[in-house]
């Protein structure tokens, strides 16, 4: 008799947790990490439809995940971040949306810029919330531009003396801005409740959720959404003390985001996609100064709260493996992209569970034999003695469903640990 979904759920959760705790599971677990827009390709729809139609989105994800039955899955609410209609309503300046600015078949793309200017560190440091409301949001959301006219919200700290500012909220422009915010919020609520029921269905089908929350490294927030890569790189030379102060300011916010989100979701694993600390993006000295200390503190605090950090080390981290080896044993799930697989296992094997490293090139245009050969190498080398979860190097958007099938079936069969 087959196993019940509940038994399967427990079996998968145990398989994943054994790997994370560096024990030897019954077989190598596998997952798709950020499956991104692969479900569109797999079910024959477009990325645009996935972003704009909740029912298409839910059906595509459900079919893909229940067909392949991974040992855990990346929260689809995280993968797509925000439904397309909410981005339209708010007029986001930071993202190109499939079917709007780019092909309906491709993934959305982020538009980086200096949304915070070089001389605005003090404004941000002195009053992050005020800065967010009256400077940052008006720049990044077109519909919220009128908020730039509001007086400082901290004026309300004067109690009823501050109340006269309420009149600034009544202009037609500001009213329209808040109306857009409200409408975008409604779209997101609708989407969230669809994702919530999808998560329930997948749980009922016996597939555990991988991560309950996302948070980011403080440096990456500064680089991705505030100063932009170029701006922040110049700041590292011209105003390093401001950069460090901003990182210190962001750290507790990002810890809070990770801890509260994970606890609310009930899944105590937090995804941390890392962007600008990889080899090439800065020297080891800059890594030691600007990137690693706050990231390490973020991960250690999550661990203290009983949460497993799941950092995605995008790019090449081979030159940084010794730093990562400093983390507590069996408490972290590290997702790797272009890092040297042998060195990663050698240096980190006793520290953290390793996932990723399956080349997307093979899963997109390779041959079944090449895929089996590479997967075998990963299982033999990185999977040796446990502590390995099979996964792709990065987002699976364009993978060939038939090749993915070969990869999954081979992993399930060859990945069994035989003592």
């Amino acid at each position, binding site marked *: 008799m087959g196993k019940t979904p509940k038994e399967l759920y427990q079996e998968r959760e145990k398989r994943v947790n054994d790997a994370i705790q560096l024990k030897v599971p019954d077989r190598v677990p596998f997952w798709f990490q950020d499956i991104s827009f692969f479900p569109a390709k797999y079910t024959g729809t477009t990325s645009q439809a996935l972003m704009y139609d909740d029912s298409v989105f839910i059906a595509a994800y459900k079919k893909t995940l229940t067909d392949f039955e991974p040992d855990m899955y990346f929260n689809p609410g995280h993968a797509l971040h925000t439904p397309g209609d909410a981005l339209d309503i708010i007029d986001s300046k930071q993202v190109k949306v499939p079917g709007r600015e780019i092909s309906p078949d491709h993934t959305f*793309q982020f538009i980086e810029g200096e949304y915070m200017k070089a001389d605005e560190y003090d404004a941000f440091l002195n009053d992050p919330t005020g800065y967010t409301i009256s400077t940052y949001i008006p720049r990044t959301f077109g519909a919220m531009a009128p908020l730039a006219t509001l007086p400082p919200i901290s004026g309300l700290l004067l109690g009823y003396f501050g109340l006269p500012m309420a009149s600034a909220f009544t202009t037609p422009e500001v009213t329209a801005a808040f109306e857009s915010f409200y409408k975008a919020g409604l779209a997101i609520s609708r989407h969230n409740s669809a994702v919530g029921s999808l998560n329930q269905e997948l749980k009922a089908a016996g597939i555990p959720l991988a991560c309950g929350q996302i948070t980011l490294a403080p440096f990456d927030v500064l680089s991705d959404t505030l100063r932009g890569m*170029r701006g922040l*790189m*110049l700041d590292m*030379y011209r105003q390093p003390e401001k950069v460090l102060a901003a990182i210190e300011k962001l750290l507790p916010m990002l810890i809070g985001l990770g801890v509260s989100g994970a606890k609310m979701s009930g899944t105590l694993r937090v995804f941390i996609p890392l962007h600008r600390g990889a080899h*090439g*993006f800065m020297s080891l000295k800059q890594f030691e100064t600007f990137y690693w200390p706050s990231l390490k503190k973020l991960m250690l605090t999550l661990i203290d709260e009983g949460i497993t950090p799941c950092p995605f080390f995008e790019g090449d981290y081979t030159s940084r493996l010794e730093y990562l080896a400093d983390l507590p044993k069996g408490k972290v799930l590290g997702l790797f992209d272009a890092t040297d697989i042998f060195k990663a296992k050698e240096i980190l094997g006793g520290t953290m569970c390793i996932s990723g490293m399956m080349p997307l*090139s*093979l899963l997109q245009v390779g041959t079944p034999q090449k895929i089996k050969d590479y997967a075998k190498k990963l299982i033999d080398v990185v999977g040796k003695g446990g502590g390995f979860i099979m996964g792709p190097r990065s987002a699976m958007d*364009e993978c060939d469903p038939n090749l993915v099938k070969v990869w999954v079936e081979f992993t399930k069969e060859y990945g069994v640990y035989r003592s």
Partner: protein
Amino acid sequence: MSGDLKIILADLKEKDALEIVKNRLDTGGDPLSILDDARRGMEIIGKRFADGEYFIPDLVYSGEILKQITGMVKPKLAKAAPVKRFGKVVLGTVAGDIHDIGLNIVDFVLDVNGFEVLNLGVDVPAQKFIDKIKETEASIVGLSGFLTLAFDSMKKTVDAIKTAGLRGKVKIMIGGGQIDEEIRNYTGADAYGKDAMAGVSLAKKWVGGV
């Protein structure tokens, strides 16, 4: 402030470098020799990048300092002396992909290593590459891509160059994100570069070993 501009620029001492340039211009120094020193400084920076001593932030910062130096010198310049170049490279991120970090790094290192770079930017349709190859008679094409959608875009671009009858006249290299030998084979490009310096080595090899 005095000192060797090329070394001070190579060491990324922004204020000192700008002060030297100002002093030299104020005291009737030759604008061309200032630009020549700056170019030598950038060559040292390119070498340090190749040696793994410098990284992207150093390139970005040096580019910013150089821009200011050029801005100060240009008004005093009758006409710029032509710099000897080894060859022309048409460069761009392929259609559908808007990522430009890798693209600009390759542009930088090719430039400081003596190539004339024709950077078409991001999301470049195949026809634009073809037009630029015809217009400039460049012998090397570099296709960049970060997202996996670039695999097909690169293949389409290489095919279009072939259809336009230009395939025999250009060498094509590809690179970025998830690109590897598998993708080189798929796209029909001549070579893939693992990083920016690999692109320089390929370009040098193709123009006849400089």
